[in-house]
């Protein structure tokens, strides 16, 4: 764990440079948020005087720890650029302030963004599931959940200048690119050969579906990655796996049992029939359940790749977090799910 006080001082020095007109700059309630696997997250309020007036702004700093998960697949600079591009759209996202590549300042690249006020109940906890179920019963949050996903998929990503994410070719190129991306993560992990995973990868390559229309895809749209305020989505966060691709990729993630652990509600918050009907009405897209089933199996491969990468980081001594070591035992569990989905 890093010294939070030293980090606070370093951030304060950085903000003084970035905000030269700010006088008597202070950081209040500076804390490291727990739970992040790929990045370190610090939240705080900055308070200063400018032109005789006091200003206080809640901020969030996201930092590359150097040996976190998904290093090869997700750069902080790309996340910053995506959030910057989304500021001008109707999609609720945090405003970004500064991106810093100089690793000498805080020990790794980082960016600073607005801290959105709201709640993020943990959907894996009983309390979180209950909070989402109660909100679902009130009715507003499920609608907001679907409307926000539809807004994401209806977004004109070319107008938002998001081509830098890479644009798949026609047909099934998106799925093949996605498979290749995660396969490269598996290869980099130098894990022992996993024949079940090989069978899964070959099946996925042989059955990749074509795309109805390309959209900006979040890649992990679920409760836990959404900030909620007044029973509505206040912000979509955790922009780490976004791509230009098949909107069914996000739909499949919502439909997946992986994201509800026993809750009858999709993503612990929305009824399946309502989700499908409302989403299709808002987007004009047809939800092809076969295609979604394909992507759900792809997600199982993605989870296996994620756990293999995580446990290898620990095994190679690059990251000492014991949660990463634990993930090696999740690999056969998720491969078993995939095998059953494929019929063996």
């Amino acid at each position: 764990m890093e010294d939070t006080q030293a980090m606070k001082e370093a951030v304060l020095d950085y903000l003084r440079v970035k905000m030269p007109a700010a006088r008597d700059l202070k950081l209040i309630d500076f804390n490291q948020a727990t739970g992040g696997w790929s990045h370190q997250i610090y939240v705080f309020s900055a308070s200063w005087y400018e032109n005789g007036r006091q200003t206080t702004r809640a901020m969030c700093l996201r930092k590359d720890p150097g040996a976190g998960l998904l290093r090869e697949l997700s750069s902080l600079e790309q996340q910053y650029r995506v959030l910057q591009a989304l500021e001008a759209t109707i999609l609720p996202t945090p405003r970004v302030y500064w991106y810093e590549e100089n690793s000498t300042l805080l020990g790794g690249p980082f960016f600073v963004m607005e801290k959105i006020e709201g709640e993020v109940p943990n959907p894996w906890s009983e309390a979180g599931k209950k909070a989402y179920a109660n909100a679902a019963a009130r009715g507003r949050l499920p609608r907001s959940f679907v409307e926000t996903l539809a807004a994401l998929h209806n977004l004109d990503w070319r107008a938002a200048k998001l081509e830098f994410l890479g644009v798949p070719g026609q047909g099934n190129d998106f799925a093949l690119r996605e498979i290749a991306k995660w396969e490269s993560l598996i290869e980099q992990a130098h894990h022992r050969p996993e024949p079940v995973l090989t069978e899964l990868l070959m099946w996925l390559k042989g059955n990749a579906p074509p795309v109805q229309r390309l959209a900006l895809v979040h890649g992990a749209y679920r409760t836990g990655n959404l900030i909620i305020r007044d029973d509505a989505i206040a912000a979509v966060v955790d922009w780490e796996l976004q791509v230009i691709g098949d909107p069914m990729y996000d739909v499949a993630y919502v439909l997946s049992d992986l994201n509800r652990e026993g809750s009858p509600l999709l993503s612990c918050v929305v009824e399946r029939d309502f989700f499908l009907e409302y989403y299709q009405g808002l987007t004009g897209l047809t939800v092809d359940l076969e295609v979604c089933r394909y992507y759900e199996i792809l997600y199982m491969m993605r989870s296996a790749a994620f756990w293999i990468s995580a446990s290898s980081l620990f095994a190679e001594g690059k990251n000492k977090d014991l949660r990463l070591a634990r993930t090696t035992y999740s690999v056969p569990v998720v491969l078993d799910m995939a095998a059953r989905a494929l019929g063996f």
Partner: protein
Amino acid sequence: MLPAKHLLTEVIDSLRNVIGPAVKDPYSKSQAYMAAVILEFVSRQIEDRSDLESIEQLALTELFDDLSRFPDLAEIVERDGPDLRSRLCHTIEALHRARGQISPQSFDRANLRVRLALRQLLDGELKVANGRRG
């Protein structure tokens, strides 16, 4: 020398009931409890290791014996390799790549046989991962 299983049980108990509760820092405390969880897995792994290795060896040897008898797979089944797992991975890749060149019946038969062996491998690993006893 204490048996490894017994020793691990005592260390796990100590992490859960002595060390974990005594640690103040939330991150370090959660790491202590996580260490106990991992050692439980390791304990099962040690207990089942020889069993798992022999199951895997037998399953893969039988698989390659069977595949060698499939008439149109001579060019597909990898005959040598650094280990059985690698050989199987290469064979699976070759089988899928040859899908358009061999008859659908041959592919399905071979794929079914491969998947049977994969299920045996998975069931062995799940004994450790899920804590299920055979």
